């Protein structure tokens, strides 16, 4: 069994936002439009947080691409009244869109704000719907969704490996955001495999996790000289 995790190198990240675009394309996320963004309903599975801080050489900005941290001890699954969000066997916190009743308790409980809600029916512009990714299900209005570590890619890669009668090896599967990052700041892989890039980087001295003291055991590690 694998345990999927991610490492994001903040010293490489330029804040370009390619990961966000790729995620939108891959997972059939529809842009909500300017008016809805003004109302604070921007809709991303991976979002770009900006941290400004004052240092000895003046103010500086750091970009934090933040997907769902896929916690090993998720606060969100404990509060879901219908078992629509659950911790899968491989460590991915899943979301069952067809069972979600849209109570948004998991959104209120997530300390990282990783979940997004479909306030309206997603509106595809022009003919973009024809180019949607058939591997990812569409969500209706009124359900909660979030980053899935491109779970569909894992399933496809595993099928291909099984067809070729070999095991999945490191590098066989990667998420859309990791694949598209021009600075190669995002690395995805199996944390249970001690030889994978992800495991080795997660053990780096520069590695930290956000709000670890909450006990959520997030599986996204950040690398940074600071903090």
């Amino acid at each position, binding site marked *: 069994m694998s345990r999927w995790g991610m490492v994001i190198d903040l010293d490489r990240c330029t804040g370009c936002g390619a990961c966000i675009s790729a995620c939108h394309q891959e997972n059939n996320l529809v842009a909500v439009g300017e008016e*809805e963004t003004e*109302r*604070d*309903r*921007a809709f991303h599975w991976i979002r770009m*947080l*900006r*941290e400004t801080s004052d240092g000895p050489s003046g103010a500086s900005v750091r970009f*934090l691409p*933040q997907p769902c941290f896929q916690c090993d001890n998720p*606060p969100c699954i*404990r*509060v*879901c*009244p*219908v*078992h*629509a969000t659950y911790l899968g066997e491989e460590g991915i916190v899943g979301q069952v869109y067809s*069972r*979600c*009743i*849209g*109570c*948004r*308790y998991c*959104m*209120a*409980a997530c*300390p*990282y*704000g990783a979940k*997004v*809600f*479909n*306030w*309206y*029916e997603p509106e595809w512009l022009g003919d973009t719907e024809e180019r949607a990714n058939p591997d990812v299900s569409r969500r*209706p*209005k*009124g*359900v*909660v969704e979030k980053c899935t570590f491109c779970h569909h890619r894992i399933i496809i890669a595993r099928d291909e490996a099984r067809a070729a009668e070999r095991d999945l090896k490191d590098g066989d599967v990667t998420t859309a955001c990791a694949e598209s990052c021009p600075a190669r700041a995002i690395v995805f892989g199996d944390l249970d495999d001690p030889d994978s890039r992800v495991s080795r980087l997660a053990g780096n001295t520069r590695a930290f996790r*956000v*709000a670890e003291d*909450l006990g959520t055991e997030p599986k996204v590690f950040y690398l940074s000289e600071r903090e």
Partner: protein
Amino acid sequence: MKTDETTIERSDFQDYALIRPIEEGGAGFRVAFTLLTLVLLGGWVLFSRQILYGLGVTGLNQPVAWGFYIVNFVFFIGISHAGTLISAILRLSNAEWRRPITRMAEVITVIVLAIGGFHPLLDMGRPERLLNIFTAGRLQSPLLWDVTAISAYFMASTVYLFIPMIPDIALLRDRGVWPHWFYRFLSWGWQGTPRQVAVLNRAVSIMMVVVIPIAVSVHTVISYIFAMTVQPGWHSTIFGPYFVVGAIFSGIAALMLVMIVMRRVFHLESYLKQIHFDQLSKLLLVMSLLWFYFTFSEFLTGFFGNEPSEMRVFYYKISGAYAPFFWGMVAFNFIIPVTILSFRRLRTIPGIFIASSTVVIGMWLERLNIVVPSLANPRLPYPTGFYIPSIVEWGMFAGAIATFILGFVLFARFFPLISVWEIQEGREQSVKETSERLKGYLPDEPSAARVR
């Protein structure tokens, strides 16, 4: 307790004032009913917009995913503690002044539980999937605890309202009030025989004890929705007792508001006297001080700990965007009521009306202050959220209030707002019983003659 009392046939019935609205009806009822139904329908029309287009028609967003519906959910269920405190605890402690009050208190409880319990449905993104709660519900979720606790409380309080109503329903049945079949159906064959009286009293005694822990657990469980998360401002152990105290507080205030209005509308001045309001005001004053103590403890602990995410929420409430609501809450819940209720000269009916209204508004603000600031100040460096409720949310809030008033109007049209048989019991038996009881408190006479 009750003597072998058969049905009252006299037309110059002593407590006729209590049943005149039922026997004579009136245009007032029709006007009120029409107006309130219109407001309620307006609320439903707005809700249908939400069903059609999605929750986007509200002012909710990321990160403030919860707003008016959850605030009103907690608020209305909080008011339900009116019935329990007054009815059950006062009955348990043999407080005689509760007689004209218990029925109204119990009615408030049943109505607001129905309204409040319905609000989570209004808040759902996919309400048609409600049955998932029944087929795939997870008992470890605080929301499920809520569903269970609120249904238990609703059942218990409906039973607790209905059973003491039976003698009054039988009274209306015997006076031939329309609709005859309705009162006959509900009166369950009551005749006032000693056996029946014994059965009724025993049942009421059981319920009044049982309903108190249920009521306490309901609001504690509602507080757990917030306290069981790890969000700053929510994850606090004081929430359970805090919510219960707040609920009793808002419940008494709502009860007094209802009493004052009903007293004026139905001319019940001889039944709801200054002494009743005095007693309830003392309770309200105590609850206001208790509320302040809990609020102070909550905030002092947070402030002293100085934990960054807690302090962001703290300053948002004290001096940030929510300062008007926070300080408004303090003024309405503490400063104004304590000022008015502490001084006898101010504790007039109009003064109590003002104090109760401010408490009801202040407690609504308290719910708002609990729900929104913690959501608007996320842990991660995300810009502070904001929440501006939309017309849909305001409309549904108005609809909920209209439903409450409508429920009351309908109840008053068909049932006496003051328990007729309990007033009669008070008049005929309790005076003697109470003086016997008081003599029992005094030291015993040294001579042989014991007063019994």
